[in-house]
């Protein structure tokens, strides 16, 4: 769900940035954060609550709330709402607190 036309802002088509989400190939755009690219592709659920595994999307989009934590390139608890998307990134949903091992 991208904005194609806007009365004030110019969202000219940008370079496509390929990445994977839970192993599935996806495409974002240059300048996206990881969460913005997923959202544009219709992925709303970014994480799960730790105890009850309730679905969580993002709430603040500026790195405050931790609702968008995912595992990116093997690193858990990445704030995907403020992490710029990079070509070839391996983005994965994360259940639980995440581990470095």
């Amino acid at each position: 769900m991208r904005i194609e036309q806007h009365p004030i802002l110019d969202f000219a088509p940008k370079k496509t940035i390929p990445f994977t989400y839970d192993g599935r190939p996806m495409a974002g755009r240059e300048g996206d954060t990881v969460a913005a690219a997923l959202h544009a592709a219709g992925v709303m659920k970014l994480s799960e609550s730790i105890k009850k595994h309730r679905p969580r999307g993002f709430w603040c989009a500026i790195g405050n709330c931790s609702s968008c934590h995912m595992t990116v390139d093997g690193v858990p608890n990445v704030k995907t709402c403020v992490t710029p998307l990079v070509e070839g990134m391996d983005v994965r949903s994360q259940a639980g607190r995440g581990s470095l091992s």
Partner: protein
Amino acid sequence: MTRQELLVIGGGPAGLSAAIAAADAGAKVLLVDRAPMLGGQLVKQTHKFFGSEKQYAKTRGFDIAKLLIADVLQRSDRIETATGTTAVALYPDRVVTLVKGEQYRKVAADAVVIAAGASEKFLAFENNDLPGIYGAGAVQTLMNVYGVLPGKRILMIGSGNIGLIVSYQLMQAGVDVAAVVEAAPTIGGYKVHAAKLARLGVPILTSTTILRAEGKEAVEKAVTVGLDACWNPIPGTEQSHDVDAVCVAVGLSPLHQLVSMAGGKTAYIPELGGFAPLLTAEHETTLANVFCAGDAAGIEEASSAMVEGRLAGYAAAKRLGHAHPDYDALVADCHAQLDTLRNGPFGRKTLAGIEKMNEKLREACRLAQ
């Protein structure tokens, strides 16, 4: 550990203005922001600002960000910038720890200006954690920075200026706004913003709040309910809205945490949005040489944040031995601008909050003696 004359934490309207003012007075500044770009929340403000020329009135927020960032870059001999850099701690001796990716470093600052901004307030209702429920700032970021739509049809909670402006911006981006709900009996924001929505046919439901969101993996519906004079839900007035997103615009709270962790005094002042640091007229906290400006000092808006930033920048530079040659006149002008900006119905609330804050500050000073 490196030494730094002045460290400014936060690159939004307040922090950018503080850095510019301090550099003009002669201070060497390090300006840090955790976001990948400078500008803070100005970068997503597509509306034209009010106020006077000194606060860039009639200019769109994202254009104000460009002007301020250009002013900072022009002073690159005095201002060093570090984006993607989070200030994770402030200690009483003004040591600040900064994290950028895997790098961790310590900076011992002679003076600090905290311009960390605010966080969005949350609202308690059933299923308020479902994906598709966003803070108003998140909706603006998604739409206006990344060009991504938050949903097809949205319910707005809160009719303050942010709720009204973001509703209008949602319509501009092509999202249908099902309704704006407001728990109070009257619309919170400016009439001019509310009138724009009314012309577009968006209902503004006063004395109404959200009861619950419904949906499995994301929002599929939202149920609102009417409130009586005591703000209790009125049974039988439930209304179901077919929406795939809910936007919560019920206010902001100052990010006071850095001040608090260093032992600076704060007080709970509802008019300022929650816990706010106790500040002198020059915006110094109860910690020597630690200043605070913008929403982190109490929720207001970007115009006053810019003026407060300048004020704190001049004051911090003076403390470091860089008194601007026109210091008294510049500071008097900042105070005059703030008085003008607060000379309205919303200003009265801020002024009441500042009066409470001053009382708490006097109390804290008496206890310290």
